[in-house]
C-alpha cells in the first residue's frame, strides 16, 4: 500500500456485552429527526416517567416521542425553523421498574395504535426518502436489518443471544403492519426468523462491502421506486418492540460498540439510546498522537457525526483523532491567493474505485454528476430513491472531489419528497 492510501481503524471490538458507564443525562436530538417540528408536551423542570410523551410531530400528532428514562427535563433547545435541537433529561436516582403487563394486541389496527402511542413509530424509516413513515402508511414490505454494516459494529447474533423469543414477538408484531413480507436480513448462520410464520422470511448476505446496509438488502430483495415503498428497522428496535408487547416496558436500552483508534478497550457496551457520550466514554480514550484532540463520533467512522449524544439509530461510538486546526491568520500578498482554502469540491475524476464503492445498478459517474448539480429529475431517474445518506458514504470517500454526496443526496431527496 502506498503511503496515504491506508487508514488506521483501531482494533476490532471484543464481541461480548459489558455494562457501560452509568450515564446521568440522555437526550432526544433533532439531528436524528431532520425536518421534524415538535409540539412540546412538557416543560423544563418537569418530572417525566419512562415512556411518558415528551412531544409530538406537528404535522402528524399521532407520532409521539417518549422519554427513554425517568427523570427531570433539564433543558429544551430549539433549532432553526422551530425544529428540535435537543431535549435533555437528567436521570433520577431511583429508577423503579413498572410491573410487567402483557399487552393485548392481536389486530393490525391495535398494533399500529400501540406502536404509535408508545413512541416506537420513529423506529421505522421509509425507503424512498429515509424518513419516519406517515401514521396511516402501509409498506409493501418491512426490512429488519440484522446485519453489522462494518466490522466494528456489534454482531447482531451476540446482542440477540438468549432473547430470541422476545425478538420473534417483535417480528410477529411487524408482520401485522404490512400485507407483504417481513425480510429478516442477516449474515450466514442459523435463521433467526425460522418458525415465525410464512410472511417472515430470513434473507442471508455474505459479510463485507456494503452488504450490511439496509439499502443493499432492499435493492436485492424488493427494489423501490416512485410507486413502491418499504420500511426498514434496526434489530434492536425490533427487540424493544417485542419487549413492549410482552411486558409493556418501554425499553430503550442499546448495545453499542465502543471502538476506533482512540478507544482504550474496544468492546460492546449496554447503554440507553440518546445517552450522553461524555458520561459514557469517561476514561475510555487513550491520548492521541502528538496530543491530537479527541473527536467523538456517534455512528461508524465512515459516516458517523461528531456528537455529544448517542444517535437514535446508531449502534457505534467511534473515538478518533480530531483534525488539527488550521487557524492561521488571513495572509496577505501574492502567495496567499494560491493558499486560499478550497470552498468548492475538487473535480470528479472517473476512477475504477467509484464503481466498486456503489453496489447498486446505477451508472455511478452520471449519477454523481447529477447530484453535484442538484438535478433532482435525473438523479431520480438514475435511482436516487433507492438510496439514503449511508449508502453513499463509501463513494464520498473514494471520489477525488472530496464532496459529501450524502448531503447532496439529502438535498435532492427533500426536493423530491416535497413534489411527491
Amino acid at each position, binding site marked *: 500500500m502506498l503511503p496515504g492510501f491506508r487508514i488506521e481503524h483501531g482494533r476490532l471490538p471484543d464481541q461480548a456485552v459489558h455494562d457501560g458507564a452509568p450515564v446521568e443525562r440522555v437526550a432526544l436530538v433533532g439531528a436524528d429527526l431532520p425536518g421534524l417540528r415538535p409540539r412540546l408536551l412538557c416543560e423544563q423542570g418537569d418530572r417525566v416517567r419512562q415512556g411518558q410523551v415528551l412531544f409530538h410531530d406537528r404535522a402528524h400528532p399521532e407520532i409521539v416521542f417518549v422519554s427513554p428514562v425517568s427523570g427531570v427535563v433539564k433543558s429544551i433547545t430549539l433549532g432553526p425553523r422551530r425544529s428540535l435541537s435537543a431535549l435533555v433529561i437528567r436521570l433520577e436516582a431511583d429508577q423503579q421498574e413498572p410491573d410487567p403487563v402483557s399487552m393485548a394486541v392481536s389486530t393490525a389496527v391495535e398494533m399500529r395504535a400501540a406502536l404509535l402511542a408508545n413512541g416506537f413509530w420513529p423506529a421505522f424509516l421509509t425507503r424512498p426518502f429515509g424518513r419516519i413513515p406517515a401514521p396511516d402508511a402501509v409498506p409493501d414490505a418491512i426490512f429488519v436489518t440484522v446485519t453489522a454494516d462494518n466490522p466494528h459494529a456489534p454482531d447482531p447474533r451476540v446482542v440477540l443471544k438468549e432473547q430470541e423469543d422476545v425478538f420473534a414477538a417483535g417480528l410477529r408484531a411487524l408482520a401485522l403492519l404490512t400485507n407483504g413480507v417481513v425480510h429478516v436480513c442477516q449474515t450466514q448462520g442459523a435463521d433467526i426468523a425460522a418458525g415465525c410464520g410464512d410472511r417472515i422470511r430470513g434473507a442471508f448476505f455474505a459479510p463485507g462491502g456494503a452488504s450490511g446496509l439496509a439499502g443493499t438488502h432492499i435493492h436485492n430483495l424488493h427494489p423501490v421506486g416512485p410507486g413502491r415503498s418499504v420500511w426498514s428497522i434496526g434489530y434492536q428496535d425490533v427487540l424493544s418492540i417485542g419487549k413492549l408487547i410482552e411486558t409493556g416496558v418501554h425499553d430503550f436500552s442499546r448495545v453499542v460498540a465502543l471502538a476506533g483508534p482512540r478507544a482504550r478497550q474496544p468492546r460492546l457496551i449496554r447503554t440507553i439510546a440518546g445517552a450522553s457520550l461524555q458520561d459514557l466514554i469517561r476514561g475510555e480514550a487513550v491520548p492521541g498522537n502528538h496530543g491530537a484532540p479527541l473527536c467523538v463520533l456517534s455512528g461508524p467512522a465512515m459516516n458517523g457525526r461528531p456528537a455529544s449524544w448517542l444517535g437514535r439509530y446508531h449502534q457505534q461510538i467511534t473515538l478518533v483523532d480530531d483534525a488539527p486546526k488550521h487557524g492561521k491568520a488571513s495572509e496577505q500578498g501574492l502567495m496567499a491567493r494560491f493558499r486560499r482554502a478550497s470552498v468548492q469540491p475538487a473535480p470528479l475524476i472517473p476512477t475504477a474505485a467509484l464503481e466498486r464503492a456503489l453496489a447498486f445498478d446505477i451508472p455511478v459517474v452520471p449519477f454523481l454528476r447529477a447530484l453535484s448539480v442538484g438535478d433532482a429529475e435525473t438523479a431520480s431517474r438514475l435511482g436516487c430513491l433507492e438510496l439514503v445518506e449511508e449508502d453513499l458514504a463509501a463513494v464520498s470517500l473514494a471520489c477525488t472531489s472530496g*464532496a459529501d454526496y450524502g448531503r447532496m443526496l439529502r438535498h435532492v431527496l427533500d426536493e423530491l419528497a416535497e413534489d411527491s
Partner: protein
Amino acid sequence: MTNWLLDSHLKRQRTGWTPARVTLAQLVALAAPAGVSLAERGTAQIAVLMTALATCLVWELAFDLVRGRSLSLHTATVALIFAVLVPPAVPLWQIAMAASFGVVFGELVFGGRGYGIVSGAAAAAGFLVFSFSGTGLSASSEAVALATLPGAVLLLLGGLVSWRVLVSVVVVLVASGLAQEGMSGVLAVLTTSAFGLVFLVADPVAGASTQLGRWVFGILAGLLIVLFDTLAGSAIAPAAIVFASLLASIFAPLIDYAVVELTVRRRRARHG
C-alpha cells in the same frame, strides 16, 4: 450557500485518489516514456520539453491566480504527453502556440483538469498538425512503447485508466493489423500506438464514464484510428490516434447518454 465538502474527520479518512495524487501517478507513469524520448532525440528534445512545460505552467499559474485557486501541477502531464508526441524539428514558437491552445482550450477554460471534454494534450497536438503545414508528429519508437508499459500497469492497477477502453481499442487495432499483414502487423500496430492509447485515448476524463459506454467508446476510437490512419501497412500514424481520440471524446457524452437511457429503461422495468 450550503457547504458540500466532507467534514474534517471524514476528509482525514479519504484513502483513495485525490486530484493531487492522480497528477502525481500520471507524472510517474509518464516519466519513463518522456525520459526515453529525451534519450532518443537528444538535446533538441530538451528544448521542446522545456518549452511545453514552461508554457503550460505559465497558463496554469495565470488561471490559478485569477480564479484564486490553490496551485496544482495538472498541466505538467499535458506538457509531458505533448512533448513526447512532438518531433524535435518543430520550431519552439509553434510548440508554445500549440501547447497554449491545448492547455487553455482543452482544460483551463473549463475549470482545469477533470472539467474539460477533451484531453489537453490531444488538443495541443491536433492544433499543431492543423495550423502549421508540413508539421507531422513523431512516430512512437519501440523503446517508447516499451517504456509506456510500466506506467500503463500503474494506471490500470490504480483504476486511473479503464481496462475496458484499452481492451476494446486494442482488439479493433489488432484485428485490422491482422487483416493487413498477419502476425507481423500486430507487433507494428502495438509499438506505434501504445503511448497514444494509454495517455490519449484512455484518458479517464475525456472518455465515456459508464461501464458499457467504455466498451463502445474503445471500439469507436479503434475504428476511427483505422479510418484516419494514412500510413501504408499496419503501422499507425500518431496523428490518427490524436484525431481519433479527439473525435471519440466528443462522442463520449452521446455514448453515455445512450447507455444511461438503456439503464433507466431497465430500471423502470424492475423498480416500477
